[in-house]
C-alpha cells in the first residue's frame, strides 16, 4: 500500500520506553511517525485501553517498557505482557491481525533498540495496511466487534479473571509467592 502512513500509538513506560525515546532524540536518530502515551509503568495499561486505541482508529499499538526483570516496579511489565497476550487472542478471535499489538522490553539507555522497534513495527503495520480494510471488515462491523470486546473486559467477572490468571504459569508463581 503506497503512501499509507499508519497511525501508531505507543504506550511508553516512564523509565525505559520513554527514556529510550528521549535518548533517541538526543542522538538525533530518525524515527517513524508514532504518537506516545506516557505511563509510569506499562502495567498501568488496561486491556480495554488497548482495544480502545483500535476502536479509535489506530492501526497499531505498541507497549514499550523495561526489560524483563528490570521493571522499575518489579513485575509491572509481566502483567502488561500477560494482558497484551489476552488482547492478542481476543483480536484474533474477532478477525483482526494480532500482530497489530506489539510488546517490547528494552533498556532505558538503549535508543538503538527503540529505533529498531519503532521502525520494524511501523514497517510491519504498513505492510498490514489500514485497520479494518486490510482485515476485510467494514467500519461498522469492526466497531461493533471491538465495542463488544471492550464490554467484555469492563465487566470481567471475578471467576473469569481467576480462570485467566490460573491458566498462566506466571500467575501460579505469583500466587505461590504470597
Amino acid at each position: 500500500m503506497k503512501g499509507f502512513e499508519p497511525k501508531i500509538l505507543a504506550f511508553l513506560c516512564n523509565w525505559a520506553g520513554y527514556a529510550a525515546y528521549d535518548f533517541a532524540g538526543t542522538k538525533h536518530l530518525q524515527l517513524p511517525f508514532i504518537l506516545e502515551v506516557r505511563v509510569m509503568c506499562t502495567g498501568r495499561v488496561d486491556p480495554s485501553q488497548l482495544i480502545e486505541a483500535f476502536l479509535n482508529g489506530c492501526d497499531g499499538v505498541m507497549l514499550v517498557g523495561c526489560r524483563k526483570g528490570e521493571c522499575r516496579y518489579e513485575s509491572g511489565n509481566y502483567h502488561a505482557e500477560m494482558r497484551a497476550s489476552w488482547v492478542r487472542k481476543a483480536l484474533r478471535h474477532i478477525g483482526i491481525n494480532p500482530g497489530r499489538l506489539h510488546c517490547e522490553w528494552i533498556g532505558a539507555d538503549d535508543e538503538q533498540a527503540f529505533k529498531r522497534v519503532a521502525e520494524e513495527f511501523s514497517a510491519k503495520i504498513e505492510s498490514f495496511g489500514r485497520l479494518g480494510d486490510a482485515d476485510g471488515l467494514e467500519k461498522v462491523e469492526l466497531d461493533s466487534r471491538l465495542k463488544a470486546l471492550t464490554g467484555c473486559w469492563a465487566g470481567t467477572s471475578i471467576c473469569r479473571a481467576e480462570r485467566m490468571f490460573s491458566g498462566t504459569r506466571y500467575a501460579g508463581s505469583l500466587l505461590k509467592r504470597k
Partner: protein
Amino acid sequence: MSQDPKIGVFICECSGEIGSKIRCADLASFAARLEGVKEVQTHPSYCMPLGLEEIKKAVAAQGLDRAVIAGCSPRTHEALFMKALSEANLNPYMLEVVNVRDHAAAVTPSVENATRKACAMLKVSAARAAKLVPLENAGVKPDRRVLVIGTGLAGLSAAKELVARGFKVLAAEKTEAPGGMLRRHYTMLPGPQSTEEFLKELLDDLNKNPDVEFMFGTEVISLIGETGAYEVTVRDRSGEKKISAGAVVVATGAEELLPQGLFGFNGEDVITQTMFESRLKRGLDLVVRSIAMIQCAGGRSEQVPYCSRICCMTALKNALWIKEQRPSLTVSIIFRDIYIGGPIQERDIRTAAENGIRFFRYEKDNPPVVQREPEGGVVPTLRIVVDDILTNTKKELECNLVVLSNPLVPARDSRKLSAILGLPVDRHGFMIDQHVRVKPTNFLEKGIFVCGNAHFPLSPYECRIHAYGTASRIANLLLRDELQGSALYSEVDQAKCIACGQCEIICPYSAIRVIQDEKGKKARSSAVNCLGCGTCAAGCPMQAISMRHFTDEQISSQIAAAAN
C-alpha cells in the same frame, strides 16, 4: 469539573533546538484552535528564569488553571515547571510537559513532518491537560533513623557522621565483623597509615555511642515504603525482622576480581595486592629479595573494561612502604598506563623514582610473561619477560614474588540488593546515580543513597568524602518536620470494590491490601507505600481502583486525541 478548563500552551523554542526544526508559529496557531486552550505563548527557553517568569505572569494575567509546555522531556524538566506553577499559586499537577524536542524536532528530518508530528503530540497533551485534576502530596513525617547496609570504610564513616548529626544508625553487616576491606589491608591510602589502628579508633568511637546499633550476620530481604518512612525486612540467624528507617545508605563495597589464569597467579608467589598486604602485616619473608608488580592484571580488559582507579595508587603505596622498610629489596612496577592524580600521588611517583623503584611499561597486546625457573632450589624462582616500550627493549627480570594489581568489581550480591532496593546498576553492576552530570549522589529513590565502592572504586580518602557527603544529604532530607511524599498513588472506590484480592496479588509492595474493618471487607491502599505504577488499577476487574494522575479518563482522552 464545573468550569471549563483554561489551558495555557507554552511553546519553547529551546534556543533554536526546536525553533530551527519546527515552525513554532504554525504550532502556535494550531494550539490556539484546540479545545480549552485560552492562551498560547512562545519563548526561546522556558527553563531559564526569564521563561519561568513568563509562565507565572501568563497564569496570573489570563487566569489559567493548567499548563501545557511543549519543550523537552518531562523526565528532566517536569519538576522545574511544577515548581514554577506552585509559585504561581497553581497546583503543580495541573501541568503537562510534551517533549517535542526529542520526540518530534530531533527525530524527524523534514520541517514539514516535524511540525505535523509536534501538532499531533500537542493535541494529545492538550486533551490530557483538560482532564487533569489538582493533587496533593501525601505528607510524611520522617523517621530519624538511618539504615546503613555494609560496615566497611564508607558505611562506618557515614554512620559516624550521621550520629554526630543526631541520627540513630542501624548498621547491618552481612559478615560477622565490621571493617570490610579495611580488615584485609595493612596500610591505607594516602600515605602509609595503619589500617588496624584507624579501624580500631573508628569502631571504639562508634561502639561507645548509644545511637549506633550493629547487626551482624544480617541480610536485607525487602524494602517497602517511601522516603522518610521505609520498612525494611532483614534476616539474621534468629530469623526475619522488620525495621523502620527514614533513609537507607548502601555501602556494600566492591570485591576484587581474582586474576585466575593471569600471569601464573597461584596465591603463593604470584599474589594480589591484598594478599601482599596481609603478608606485610605478618612480616614479609626474608627470602624475598626482589618484587615485581604487574598493573592492570585483569583490569581494562574485555571482561573488566573500566580502570579500577585505585590499583596504581595501591601499588605505589605498597612499593614505597616496602622500599622504606627494606631498602636493599628490588622493586619493579610493570604498568600499562599509570592513572593517578592529585598532589600526594604526584609526590609519591617522584619519590618512587628517586628511591630506585624501577618502572617498565608494556602494551595491552603484548603483556609480560611470568616464567617459573625449573626446580632445583634456584633463587629467585620467577622470571618475567617484558617488552618495555619506554626503552624499546626486551627486559628479563628475576624475582621471588610477583604482585598483581587486580581490579575491583561489584560485590557478588550487588545486583540482588539493587533489585531489592530498586536502584539501577550500570553495565558492570555498580549502582549508579540518577544522572551523572545533573544529579550526582541522587539515586532513583530520594531516601536511598549509595556511597563508597558500591558506586565505583574509590580511594579511602575519596570514600570518606563520599560518605560524609551522603550523611549531609540525609541530614538535609530528614531534619525537616514533614517530607512531601508523592502525589501519585492508587485510590480505591470503596463502593465498587468487591474485595476479590486481585490487587493484593498484583502489588509487589503490599501497598494495597484487602482489610476487614468496621466498614466491611474492602481493598485499602497506602499512599506512603504506593510507588504509583498503576498495575493494580489496570488489573482491577471492577475498575474500582484509580491511579492518580494516570486515570482511565486521562488515558482515554489521550488515546482519542492521538487516533483522530
